[in-house]
């Protein structure tokens, strides 16, 4: 059987779920080979995503019916431009961070448990982005949440364990709320398929309640202000590769579900004031997260609070997309934000992990002149910072540009003011760290040299966030496929 026969276009989504899951199972059964199963996954999954991307680019979106059962009875997997782009970012970040994690964990006893959990997290994300069934999404959310919690707890310090516990409680409560919403939707419509639910009529109280429950659960999981309290400790105390994917992808996964539900089911039947409310929460998140990042004393905590702020930007998409004629621009801006933040933030977390690996701590005030020891990591930090601030030519700039466009031509200029203000604040907290890192000071002695692989992986991700700023046309064209918005 040739490779072309095995990788038929219609089987690509199934392979994307099955392969990491198989690798995860194998790494449990054969712990000695777990690194190699992870590497195998890190090479094959991006390849599969590229195949899928090429397929849908030329032939349009794909829907497959698992088990051959048509939708109301069975589950369908759906790959349009949006889900393929999410899969692509996941494959990019996971693929690169896997090569960072290898030196990071080498020789540690926890590596044995890290690799299976890592692969489970990856398969959960792939399954989540492909799923077109609201109950199947619940199962993927649980798979995602439990593996993320276990990964946070991996370093076994008191703070990490407490953070993991808090994360677990929030995550489980969020899943329960979501499941209750699923129950309402199923009772009202008799189907679980996202596409078939899409034809719901005018808003009945049960539909509104279902939306409220699901949105509440997903907001808890994606740490929108004021449900952000669990995120900074969890992301700051996790091992660096874990923090990178948690900030880059895991919080975005629940945001992605919310976007899908909003666009496919709820937008016509939910009053516009709800979107304004989500936007206001996003605004509060931007301000609160930025202020906390300015006050943070530890580098990883700074980066984690910056994630709280950046999640705020994502939620601005809800009010902006309702403005007349600029809806599409707003969605493109929001998703561009998501992608460029995924690359930039994972790069920053990896660089911060390298700092800790080298100096044994991440207290910002004691990190004077570290650029001489870690030039590549600091350069990566800087490149990613450009994207986080939103300076050209970076993915962050394109995202903010699209947002500004939407808010000004849609007539709600105050969101634009907020975006510029947020950019200024992120400049402040990034330069607060840089002023130390690049300062002249007495020679500091690192405890141990940083492996080159750790430095260059961070750099690669930072470069990706920059490259995103150079190819907006093709990314936006990709997002159009299947007309998700």
């Amino acid at each position, binding site marked *: 059987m040739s490779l072309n026969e095995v990788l038929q276009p219609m089987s690509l989504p199934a392979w994307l779920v099955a392969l990491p899951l198989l690798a995860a199972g194998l790494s449990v059964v054969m712990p000695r080979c777990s690194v190699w199963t992870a590497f195998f996954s890190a090479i094959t999954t991006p390849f599969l995503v590229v195949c899928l991307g090429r397929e849908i680019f030329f032939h349009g979106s794909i829907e497959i019916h698992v088990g051959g059962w048509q939708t109301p009875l069975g589950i369908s997997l759906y790959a349009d431009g949006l889900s393929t782009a999410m899969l692509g970012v996941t494959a990019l970040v996971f693929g690169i961070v896997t090569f960072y994690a290898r030196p990071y964990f080498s020789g540690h006893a926890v590596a044995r448990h890290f690799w299976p959990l890592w692969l489970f997290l990856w398969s959960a994300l792939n399954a989540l982005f492909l799923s077109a069934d609201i*109950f199947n999404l619940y*199962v993927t959310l*649980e798979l995602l949440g*439990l593996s993320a*919690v*276990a990964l946070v*707890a991996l370093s*076994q*310090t*008191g*703070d990490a*364990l*407490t953070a*993991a*516990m*808090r994360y*677990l*409680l929030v995550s*489980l*409560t969020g899943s*329960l709320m979501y*499941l*209750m919403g699923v*129950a309402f939707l*199923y*009772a009202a419509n008799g189907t*679980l398929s996202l596409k078939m639910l899409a034809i719901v009529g005018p808003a009945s109280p049960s539909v509104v309640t279902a939306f409220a429950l699901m949105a509440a659960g997903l907001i808890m999981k994606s740490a929108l202000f004021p449900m952000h309290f669990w995120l900074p400790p969890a992301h700051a105390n996790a091992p660096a590769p874990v923090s990178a994917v948690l900030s880059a992808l895991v919080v975005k996964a629940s945001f992605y579900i919310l976007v899908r539900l909003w666009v496919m089911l709820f937008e016509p039947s939910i009053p516009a004031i709800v979107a304004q409310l989500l936007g206001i929460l996003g605004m509060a998140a931007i301000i609160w997260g930025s202020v906390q990042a300015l006050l943070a004393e530890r580098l990883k905590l700074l980066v984690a609070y910056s994630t709280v702020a950046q999640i705020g930007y994502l939620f601005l998409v809800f009010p902006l997309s309702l403005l007349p004629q600029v809806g599409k621009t707003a969605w493109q801006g929001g998703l561009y934000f998501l992608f460029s933040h995924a690359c930039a933030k994972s790069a920053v977390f990896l660089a911060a992990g390298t700092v800790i690996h080298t100096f044994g701590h991440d207290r910002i005030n004691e990190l004077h002149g570290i650029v001489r020891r870690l030039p590549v990591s600091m350069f990566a930090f800087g490149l990613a910072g450009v994207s986080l601030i939103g300076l050209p030519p970076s993915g962050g700039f394109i995202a903010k540009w699209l947002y500004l466009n939407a808010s000004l031509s849609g007539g709600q200029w105050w969101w634009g003011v907020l975006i510029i203000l947020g950019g200024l604040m992120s400049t402040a907290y990034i330069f607060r760290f840089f002023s130390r890192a690049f300062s002249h000071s007495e020679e500091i002695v690192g405890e141990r040299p940083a492996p080159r692989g750790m430095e260059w992986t961070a750099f690669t991700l930072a470069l990706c966030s920059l490259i995103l700023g150079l190819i907006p046309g093709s990314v936006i064209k990709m997002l159009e496929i299947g007309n998700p918005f």
Partner: protein
Amino acid sequence: MTVPNMYALVGVGLLCMGLYGLVMHSHLVRKILALNVSGSGVFLFLVALADQTPGPTPDPVPHAMVLTGIVVAVSATALALALACRIQQVNGTLRLSDNEPE
């Protein structure tokens, strides 16, 4: 009021009581207990609605969903309890709020 509706209301009650317990208790094991009660409430709600079908047999799809949910719940509970035990061992306390920075 029909019987399935009554059970659905009990499910709502259990969910809300569990959420109340989750917020009120600071002891971790109690929080986990409360979450389990909430979960039972959601499951009961789902199956009670499935029993409202016009025909004699209830809808099997919610039954399968709840079976899945029960297994997921026991996995999550095991993980949560393992974490709680480890927190007790490392921090010497089982209350999250005690653990704020001093």
